[in-house]
């Protein structure tokens, strides 16, 4: 079957890369950055360092990129002044140099052409590639209006391209990180406290006495500041309570591990609420002063006893009571962690609500050892003309589908880009920056339909990923070590800014995203929005407005500012109004009630595996960030594939031995593209299997990642949509083992 847009593998380009690989990776001599002979002060002096903040994940730790006497990038070390990392990067940040040295990087602009009836990529100049993108964008704008161009983004390039797209006349910008990740918890916390959690989470872990993790695996997800603070909490003797069907690293550090039956967390949370309320353990002054709906809550959880929850969760009643008492003992210095990737079963906003309610009962919001009031630096925007007003945006597209979606839902963008879309707000062209949609979003059939229907797709990325195979034009971005970007203004205990600047010239023919956006903008007649030659001018202007300069920040990297909006924590009895309808912490969510949703969370039974099938649970591993680091030479060296965690009982049943290769088939008969090696371990429940997310790349041009391990995303086809905000629940998928290669014909 011929499709309009064939997936193209850039195999020919790989060969060129290998030659470079040899030279790039052998650049290192064994003597190290600092010569073994320490007396060579000259070589020490030749060492330079440039400030940066990390782009390997969203935590954005600030650090220094070191170059040797020849100007070659040698290592990256954390910036000691940075409150997000305290001078210590995580393995991915330390291994970030691999992104720069990866010989498989995108090297030159590529344009899809048809030669002899076969679609392929042809190398192009930047002029040719940008002209083509601009002309296709203009065509789309003329035919359908500029609003039908959309941007999918993750990370730093998004803001530059987003600026260009808004100037062009479209505000249809989306990020999978909302509906595929933390959206539900933000809606749940807004409904309760009138404030979203945000990133990094304002959890005062280093001062806590009790940390409760619901399926959250801090330490395997290397959210740096949190991992550091969890370690501080261990030092301080804090009690950790971990709820997880898997014996996670965090579980191994815990006073209590609750090996819960998967998909039943809500029952446990409600039982904990029951104990806090009926054993009279909640923070009475706090609830009396700040909360709304306590009586309704009390009535609601009346019968949700630990005994009731035992039958559902398999967690013994006395353990449920003991852990509730443990939390109460620590109150208000207790954190029931909101988690981050929370799109599990489709009732995730409500589960996040239950977590928020628990925190409210424990009085931890706005309290030392609970949640602090974060603050971020405000930096003036560089002046440019106002954006034109789009005739429609994603809110019109989504209509009132999800009442509580504060941000756009990427899946709806995909749906509005397909031929079968019936609405009035069709998307015809995509820019995709820094997000590998096929391994990020569930629902590959819809994605494929969109790829077939769209007029135009341009991809900006540093690496050839699955998404680049579907592009009409590929624009190679240089890595974060080779470019300026916006200032980092992440919220923290103190407002802080961090600078990213290039430590080396862009390798190959790659360019920074700001340059790509500016050059595209100029071709679209939007030059007035890009009134600078180099992005450093924008940064210098902004920095001077806040009393520093680019020159100073190049020396410091990080600047921490005074708090402007009051202390970190509530004072005792402080009069405060929460940003909710009632001005109180809403134990009973009035907004939800008004729209016909449960104002107080209820337990819903979720799907369970058929005989012979196991629930697919996925998670993170410290050296990798999703699918994007799977080809990084330094990080692949730490872990090159994922393994399938199987309980020994299950392994015996199926006669699986450690290291056996199996294929997985899910409930919809979708079979994994590649086999995965079995790890037989007591660390996983017998009704579930576990694998790390982000492996099983199907692109041969990723020479290190191709075919290594299996992709969980590929097996996630049963998606449970959160009716409040459109989150895509991904943990109702079940797999069984195939011990023989099922062959291509059965693969979807």
């Amino acid at each position: 079957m011929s499709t309009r847009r064939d997936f193209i593998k850039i195999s020919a380009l790989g060969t060129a890369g290998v030659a470079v690989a040899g030279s790039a990776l052998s650049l290192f001599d064994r003597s190290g950055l600092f010569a073994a002979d320490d007396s060579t002060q000259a070589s020490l002096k030749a060492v330079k360092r440039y400030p940066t903040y990390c782009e390997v994940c969203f935590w954005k730790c600030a650090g220094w990129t070191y170059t040797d006497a020849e100007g070659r990038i040698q290592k990256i070390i954390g910036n000691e002044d940075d409150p997000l990392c305290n001078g210590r990067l995580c393995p991915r940040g330390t291994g970030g140099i691999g992104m720069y040295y990866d010989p498989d990087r995108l090297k030159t602009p590529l344009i899809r052409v048809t030669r002899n009836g076969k679609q392929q990529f042809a190398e192009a100049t930047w002029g040719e590639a940008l002209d083509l993108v601009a002309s296709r964008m203009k065509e789309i704008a003329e035919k359908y209006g500029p609003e039908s161009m959309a941007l999918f983004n993750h990370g730093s390039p998004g803001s530059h391209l987003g600026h260009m797209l808004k100037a062009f006349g479209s505000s249809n910008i989306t990020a999978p990180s909302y509906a595929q990740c933390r959206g539900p918890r933000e809606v749940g916390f807004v409904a309760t406290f009138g404030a979203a959690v945000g990133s990094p989470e304002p959890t005062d872990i280093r001062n806590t006495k009790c940390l409760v993790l619901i399926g959250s695996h801090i330490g395997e997800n290397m959210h740096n500041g949190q991992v550091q603070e969890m370690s501080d909490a261990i030092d301080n003797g804090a009690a950790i309570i971990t709820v997880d069907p898997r014996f996670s690293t965090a579980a191994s550090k815990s006073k209590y591990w609750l090996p819960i039956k998967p998909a039943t967390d809500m029952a446990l949370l409600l039982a904990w609420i029951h104990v806090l309320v009926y054993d009279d353990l909640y923070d009475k002054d706090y609830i009396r002063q700040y909360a709304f709906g306590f009586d309704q809550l009390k009535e609601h959880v009346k019968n949700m006893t630990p005994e009731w929850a035992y039958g559902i969760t398999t967690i013994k009643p006395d353990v449920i009571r003991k852990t509730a008492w443990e939390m109460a003992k620590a109150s208000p210095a207790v954190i029931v962690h909101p988690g981050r990737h929370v799109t599990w079963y489709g009732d995730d906003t409500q589960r996040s609500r239950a977590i928020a309610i628990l925190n409210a009962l424990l009085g931890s919001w706005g309290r030392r050892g609970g949640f602090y009031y974060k603050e971020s630096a405000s930096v003036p925007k560089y002046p440019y003309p106002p954006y034109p007003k789009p005739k429609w945006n994603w809110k019109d597209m989504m209509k009132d589908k999800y009442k509580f979606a504060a941000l756009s839902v990427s899946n709806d963008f995909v749906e509005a880009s397909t031929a079968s879309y019936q609405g009035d707000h069709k998307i015809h062209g995509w820019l995709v920056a820094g997000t590998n949609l096929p391994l990020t979003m569930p629902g590959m059939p819809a994605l494929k339909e969109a790829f077939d229907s769209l007029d135009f797709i341009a991809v900006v990325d540093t690496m050839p990923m699955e998404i680049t195979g579907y592009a009409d034009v590929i624009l190679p971005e240089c890595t974060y070590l080779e470019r300026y970007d916006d200032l980092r203004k992440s919220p923290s205990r103190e407002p802080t800014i961090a600078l990213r600047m290039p430590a080396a010239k862009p390798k190959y023919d790659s360019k920074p995203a700001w340059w790509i956006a500016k050059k595209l903008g100029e071709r679209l007649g939007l030059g007035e929005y890009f009134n600078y030659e180099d992005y450093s001018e924008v940064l210098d202007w902004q920095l001077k407005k806040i009393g520093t300069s680019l020159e100073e920040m190049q020396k410091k990297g990080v600047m921490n500012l005074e708090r402007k909006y009051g202390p970190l924590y509530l004072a005792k009895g402080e009069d405060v109004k929460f940003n909710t309808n009632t001005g109180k912490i809403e134990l009973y969510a009035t907004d939800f009630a008004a729209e016909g949703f449960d104002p107080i969370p209820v337990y819903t039974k979720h799907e369970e595996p058929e005989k012979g099938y196991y629930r697919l649970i996925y998670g993170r591993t410290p050296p990798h960030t999703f699918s994007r680091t799977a080809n990084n030479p330094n990080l692949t060296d730490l872990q090159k594939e994922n393994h399938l965690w199987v309980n020994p009982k299950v392994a015996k049943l199926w006669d699986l031995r450690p290291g056996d290769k199996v294929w997985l088939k899910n409930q919809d008969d979708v079979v994994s593209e590649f086999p995965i090696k079995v790890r037989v371990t007591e660390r996983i429940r017998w009704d579930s299997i576990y694998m790390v997310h982000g492996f099983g790349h199907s692109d041969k041009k990723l020479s290190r990642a191709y075919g290594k391990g299996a992709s969980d995303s590929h097996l996630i086809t049963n998606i449970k949509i959160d009716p409040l905000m459109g989150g895509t629940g991904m943990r109702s998928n079940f797999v069984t083992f195939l011990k023989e290669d099922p062959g291509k014909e059965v693969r979807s």
Partner: protein
Amino acid sequence: MRYAMAIDTKKCVGCSDCVVACQTENNVPIGYCRDWITETVDGSYPNVELELRSERCNHCDNAPCVRCCPTGASHVVEGGIVLVTPEECIGCGACIQSCPYDARYSHPEGYVDKCTFCDHLVKRGQEPACVAVCPTKCMYFGDLDDPDSDVSVSLKNRKFKALAPEAGTEPQIFYLM
């Protein structure tokens, strides 16, 4: 002076930051490492115990690798740090066989390589790269002869063990339990 390291297994999350920091600090070629993570799991579900350890050369007081080296390339310097002089190493691999910790590897350039406790940094008063980078601050480095050093203090207040003490090599990496 006696350099040693104590590693807190209660805090280590096994993230392997120590491994990659060592690689970039010391230009260990991709595919090789001077330190690594070991995971041991005991018990059966749901009564499970997990220990994660960052392991490396133990800079033993009674180092078999030094004794068996035919050229003197493997040697001990001040503070008990065991080093290899690449120029003197003939790559025979006797030391690799003798090490109970499997801490040495053959460098592709023909000599044997291993952890140096980042002596180039220690000389300047800095910590080894693995210790300095660790997000959980679970590693303590210093002089055992100094009662106030990080390593001495950490050993004073906690139970600890060394690996394979039965080998009689008197290892100097201690694991806090």
